[in-house]
């Protein structure tokens, strides 16, 4: 009998086998936008500043960095003992070229808009780089200095417009802890350790990222012991491994994402604060978390995820399930129930369409529960599922009433492009058309302030005001889950969620 459950394959004890659900697109950081590419790139490239515990910046290719009093000029000192994987020394030329390429529109670097405050970058010596900013930016250290540095001696020979088509994305040269060994797209990508890495010995000899497109196949590989790390486990997969694979070490911690129902504030009805508040009071989110999500999520209370411990403010207005209060709010706002039980005002019914994307059974069940809760308070909801690209087009062109979505993934409370009033599409991603002068001030000054206490006060204010205004209906904060084979020696308590889980993979140890 052929058996699919126990392959019993001999495995290479020197390889750390990471199981991923999707392959990356390119190993050229100038053009990658997907999570898997970012994962691979951190094995090959180094940033000037890396992510330390609690997401704080730590020196990496940069030994030190300092700013002028007005925070417009930054001087970054570089390490002198670093070489590219082809043996060429790393210098300030590489940093300057990387930044000039990223800021040049001809390159087509997709994240260029995030760094439009960087006016110029120049070398003031072989190991010193000067950045000049057009205005102070709180994300300069954590985001700009965290960008991968690329080899000028290779990419500098290619016209910027041609960089997109260069083969560098398949044959990268970096300064990082690993070299690319082989890449079979959608199957496996492997890396071997850089024996001369400037940071010190790399304890993992080889990494094999195995692309297993199917959820069950990834779980099977972990249970059989052929996989070492399963990154980004879903709720049900986590529960299965908890029950069936007691030997695995499981990681479960709040991640950096928040999920909401976006409200299009240009729609009649949704422009009424009382309606939005009533909808949140009338939505039994705790029941959804307990039932559909098996308790494996946190009911969100605001726009900043709970995982950002330094920034999350719990002291905001709460909307615990209270359908009676929801009904009272709607009555008081002049939305009486019609003959069919749906509320209306001046002939306009409280009836909205909820857009979903990538809808699995659980999401559709969630939509059905939301529909039911809303029906109970007199709000009619219809549901439409769309593919991701269409969903984005509909929401970004503001052709929607309600949409289930989320944001996050970055270790900073900045919400400028999502909440600031000038960031309404097509300018930015304020899909709600939300406008509040206090929040505008908070998110604008929050980006310019550099002191933690000053930023904290601004983002507390942002969280308080948005909890009153409800430009989005808060849904849940999610958990990051991963499984580790016990042979992988890693301190689980030091692991950060999401893409940061592999930030110190070079120091992990493998038992034979």
């Amino acid at each position, binding site marked *: 009998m052929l058996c699919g459950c126990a*392959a019993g*394959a001999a495995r290479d004890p020197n390889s750390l086998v990471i*199981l991923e659900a999707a392959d990356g697109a390119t190993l050229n950081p100038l053009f990658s*936008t997907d999570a898997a590419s970012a994962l691979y790139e951190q094995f090959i490239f180094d940033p000037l500043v890396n992510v330390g515990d609690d997401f704080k910046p730590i020196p990496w290719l940069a030994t030190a960095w300092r700013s002028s009093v007005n925070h417009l000029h930054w001087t970054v000192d570089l390490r002198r003992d670093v070489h590219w994987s082809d043996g060429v020394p790393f210098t300030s030329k590489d940093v300057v070229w990387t930044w000039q390429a990223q800021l040049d529109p001809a390159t*087509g670097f997709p994240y260029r808009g995030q760094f439009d405050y960087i006016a110029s970058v120049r070398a003031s010596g072989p190991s010193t780089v000067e950045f000049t900013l057009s205005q102070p930016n709180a994300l300069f250290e954590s985001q700009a200095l965290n960008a991968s540095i690329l080899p000028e001696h290779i990419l500098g020979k290619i016209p910027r417009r041609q960089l997109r088509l260069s083969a560098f994305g398949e044959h990268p040269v970096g300064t990082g802890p690993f070299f690319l060994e082989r890449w079979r*797209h*959608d199957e496996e990508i492997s890396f071997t350790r850089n024996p001369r890495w400037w940071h010190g010995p790399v304890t993992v000899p080889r990494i094999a990222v195995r692309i297993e*497109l199917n959820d069950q196949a990834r779980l099977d590989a972990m249970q059989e012991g052929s996989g070492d790390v399963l990154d980004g486990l879903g709720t049900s997969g986590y529960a299965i491994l908890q029950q069936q694979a007691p030997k695995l070490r499981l990681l479960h911690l709040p991640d950096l994402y928040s999920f909401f129902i976006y409200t299009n504030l240009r729609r009649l009805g949704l422009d009424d604060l009382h309606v939005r508040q009533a909808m949140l009071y009338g939505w039994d989110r705790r029941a959804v978390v307990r039932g559909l999500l098996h308790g494996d999520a946190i009911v969100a209370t605001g726009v900043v995820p709970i995982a950002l411990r330094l920034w999350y403010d719990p002291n905001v207005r709460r909307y615990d399930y209270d359908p009676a209060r929801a009904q009272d709010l709607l009555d008081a706002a002049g939305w009486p129930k019609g003959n069919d039980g749906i509320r209306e005002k001046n002939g306009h019914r409280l009836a909205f369409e909820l857009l979903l994307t990538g809808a699995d059974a659980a999401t559709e069940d969630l939509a059905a529960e939301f529909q039911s809760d809303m029906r109970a308070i007199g709000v009619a909801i219809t549901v439409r599922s769309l593919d991701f690209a269409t969903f984005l*087009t509909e929401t*970004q062109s503001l052709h929607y009433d309600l949409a289930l979505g989320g944001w996050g993934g970055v270790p900073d409370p900045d919400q400028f492009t999502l909440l600031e009033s000038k960031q309404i599409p097509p300018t930015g991603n304020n899909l709600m058309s939300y406008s509040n002068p206090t929040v505008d001030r908070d998110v604008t000054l929050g980006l310019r302030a550099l002191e933690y206490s000053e930023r904290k006060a601004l983002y507390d204010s942002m969280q308080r005001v948005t909890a009153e205004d409800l430009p989005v209906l808060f849904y849940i904060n999610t958990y990051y889950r991963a499984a580790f084979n016990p042979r992988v020696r890693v301190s689980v308590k030091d692991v950060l969620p999401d893409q940061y889980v592999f930030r110190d993979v070079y120091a992990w140890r493998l038992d034979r």
Partner: protein
Amino acid sequence: METRPLTAYIARRLAGAIPLLLLISLISYGLMGLAPGGPTAILSQQARSLTPAARHAYEVALGLDKPWYVQYFYWLKELIVHGSLGNSFVDQRPVLARIAEKLPITVELLSLALLLTLVIAIPIGIRAAVKRDSFFDNASTAIALIGYGVPVFWLGILLIDVFAMHLRWLPGSGINSVGREGDPLDLLRHLILPAFTLAIVSVAGWLRYQRASMLDVLDEPYVQTARSKGLPERVVLYRHALRNALLPMITLLGLQLPGLVGGAYFVEYIFSIPGMGYLGINSIFQRDYPTVMGITMLSALMVILGNLLADVLYGAADPRIRYD
């Protein structure tokens, strides 16, 4: 068979395929251009601070700032002048290289599916013809027709549920187990369920053709003669009748190819097989127009060439066929 008329026939058919391919490309590009969503919509969500200027620069770099028919013209020019299908919007690699690395697994899957189909359909078709109007004949036809009517995606999910999830006899996804890359037996184990899914759906057509073809042949005088000579029934069937009854099946190969190629798209997606179909469906979701076009054109070409090959083989097998 004379060579010259055959060469001229192939040339005529290939020349006739060019406007057909052009029409397919125009319709496909038009449909993509009119579909909602686009590559930059996805990019702007991933790069959350993408400014309109950066998005526009990206659109210009990809040629997406022009109407779809202008984009089509440039795509066609690139294909005709440089023989290039362009570069993927997703990973910037040449589309042809992306397809070339996916094609072998799709061909392996299709070959195995075809082999399974023939192994199942031909013996049953023969037996159904020999036992005409018997319970076996009616039952096999009914079962085959049910298989024909079942949507391939539903059948695939059903087989995964039964054989991979519950019975755990066979893997339900991918092309090899972790740590067994390059093991042909492991590959075969992974391809059995998807190939079987494709085979079940196409068995009905083959079975019915085989049965009808066999029935025609069984009434032929040379079969009667063989029987009257006292040859064993097995020899009559397999040496005299089957050889001629297989001839029309060659035509069916060409007719079945579109269904198989189309079915392979869904099957690869359902079974997470990283072949051409999986790449195609993913590319549609990612709005990777050059890759979608490349796969569409290659699939169309495969179907056209499959039909042509069937016609040529039929001619080679049957000397009565003329190509002038």
